[in-house]
């Protein structure tokens, strides 16, 4: 790298263009990662926050609550599994219209047993154990919803008061409303004593879960796998992954093109180095080292600026979130793309004839 570093330092202007392009790609990738993480959070933060490890769905339901219907016999089988706790969960999307008029709310309604591990806060537990009512995601408080407001929910004509707020987050980009399991059944099936529910929440892990699933024609998914059932989740993450993938391919091509031009421009210099007795390996090391330093520096700057931008944006309404792991992945992937792209260019180095140092075309 004797030559590469001095070349970079004294030829800053020549490398500036590529550096800026790589930095911009890194910036864009970082912001997109922030947006991807933010969208995921915006979509499933409620499910993510629930104190459960696994969810049991009906077979063939694709982790979609509305397609999954389970019965007490299924729950019983999972409750027999040693070392895990299992509790029923009802989940559905509903519309809640205020009795006193005003804008209605879209809610992701989770019916839970008040005494289950899903309800961690004592006040929420007490509220759900009492007369029917809604415990809403705290975001709704910002929209002017108050404790005591009354809503008719879904097709039911019953009126339900807002009992309180909790940090509940969202599912399917919709704020969560916790209700008791019987209230959920009343709204879903018009019968508080219906025994059906959507899924089983499981805490803990056991090899016996698979057997229980086989016995009950259900599937056991990890919490992360269950995110895919949230409306929009798969489409959003696929789109983001696609865009980031394209960015990587573009940066690999740009870096490859730049170093191809640079290598062609340097043909005579490479011939000179070969005439001086420098091996192909020596010249390749120099070129790859130069590219690695340039790409690392530019990526570092771009990621830093992008992270700062995400930090600022995350205070606003946009669903962005700073994710160190995603940023580390972006950084490494960009450097990897640079190496791949430049290897393509550096193949030419081995083809340069040393005779051109004397101006003789062989």
């Amino acid at each position, binding site marked *: 790298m*004797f*030559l590469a570093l*001095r*070349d970079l*330092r*004294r*030829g800053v202007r020549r490398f500036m263009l590529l550096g800026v392009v790589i930095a911009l790609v890194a910036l864009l990738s970082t912001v997109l990662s922030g947006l991807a993480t933010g969208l995921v959070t915006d979509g499933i933060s409620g499910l993510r926050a629930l104190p459960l490890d696994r969810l049991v769905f009906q077979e063939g339901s694709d982790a979609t609550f509305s397609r999954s219907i389970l019965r007490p016999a299924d729950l019983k089988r999972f409750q027999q599994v040693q070392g895990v706790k299992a509790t029923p969960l009802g989940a559905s999307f509903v519309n809640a219209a205020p009795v006193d008029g005003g804008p209605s709310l879209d809610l992701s309604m989770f019916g839970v047993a008040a005494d289950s591990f899903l309800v961690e806060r004592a006040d929420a537990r007490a509220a759900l154990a009492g007369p029917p009512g809604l415990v809403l995601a705290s975001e709704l408080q910002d929209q002017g919803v108050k404790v005591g407001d009354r809503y008719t929910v879904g097709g039911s004509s019953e009126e339900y008061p807002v009992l309180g707020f909790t940090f509940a987050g969202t599912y399917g980009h919709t704020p969560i409303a916790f209700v008791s399991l019987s209230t959920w059944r009343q709204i879903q099936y018009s019968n508080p004593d219906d025994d059906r529910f959507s899924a089983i929440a499981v805490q803990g892990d056991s090899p016996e879960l698979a057997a229980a699933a086989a016995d009950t024609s259900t599937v056991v998914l990890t919490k992360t796998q269950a995110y895919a059932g949230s409306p929009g989740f798969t489409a959003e993450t696929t789109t983001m992954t696609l865009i980031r993938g394209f960015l990587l391919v573009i940066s690999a091509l740009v870096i490859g093109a730049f170093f191809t031009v640079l290598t062609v421009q340097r043909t005579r*210099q490479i011939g*000179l*180095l*070969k*005439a*001086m*007795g*420098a*091996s192909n390996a*020596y010249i390749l090391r120099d070129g790859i080292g130069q590219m690695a330093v340039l790409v690392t520096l530019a990526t570092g700057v771009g990621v830093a600026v992008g992270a700062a931008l995400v930090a600022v944006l995350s205070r606003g309404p946009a669903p962005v979130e700073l994710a160190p792991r995603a940023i580390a992945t972006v950084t490494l992937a960009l450097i990897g793309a640079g190496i791949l792209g430049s290897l393509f260019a550096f193949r030419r180095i081995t083809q340069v*004839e*040393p*005779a051109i*140092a*004397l*101006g*003789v075309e*062989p």
Partner: protein
Amino acid sequence: MNHTTTALDVDGVRVAYPDGPDERVVLDSLDLRVAAGEMVVISGESGAGKSTLLTVAGLLRRPDQGEVTVAGTSTSGLSDRQRTTLRRDHIAFVYQSANLLPTLTALEQLELVGHIRGERSGTARARALALLDELDLGGRRNQLPGQLSGGERQRVGIGRAFMAQPTVLIADEPTASLDPERARTVVDLLSGAARERSIATLVVAHDDAPARAATRRLRLAGGTLHEVVEPATDRAAAGSVLGVGARVGTGG
């Protein structure tokens, strides 16, 4: 044909370039031997094949036929890699336009040679500094090529060649782009090094300056080398005579 004193031995070399459907023979059964301490100057018309001869002698290209032996090593059986190593250890070049790397200072141009040879950076630096002082370039060591005059650039180029501690030094028109005074300095450096460092020096030159200092003069014509008959006169006074000789030689 190996002699222990023969640093460079070019034996029966033939090089031809494709020329449409035919081929143009540039070098044909060419023999050349340069011993350590000798400075051989080759003249010849444009297109006579002087540069081609230098690329063959400098192991920059393989001849179609014949053998090149450098420092006692026959090269026809060597791989490209082995030829590169042999070049690194035994051959150095001086170019017409110095051919310096634009982003290295004068000192770094020399240090690079040490770096390519895997020399310790401290050792290379000390040798480079000593060489620059010797070449009267000590004060210019931190200048980039763009900040040096033509004569200084050429002296740095020569310093770079000396830095390689070569067995064979090959110079292609080293004085062509210099005024007479600077040309003389360069020629003195080359001939002095040939004598004092026992470098086998092979110079191609159109102009007279290198010819005056030559221990032997050859002319390339028709693919082979011919002795240039040198009037046995006092060299200091013979500049013009040699010039005439060279011209007569070229014309004949």
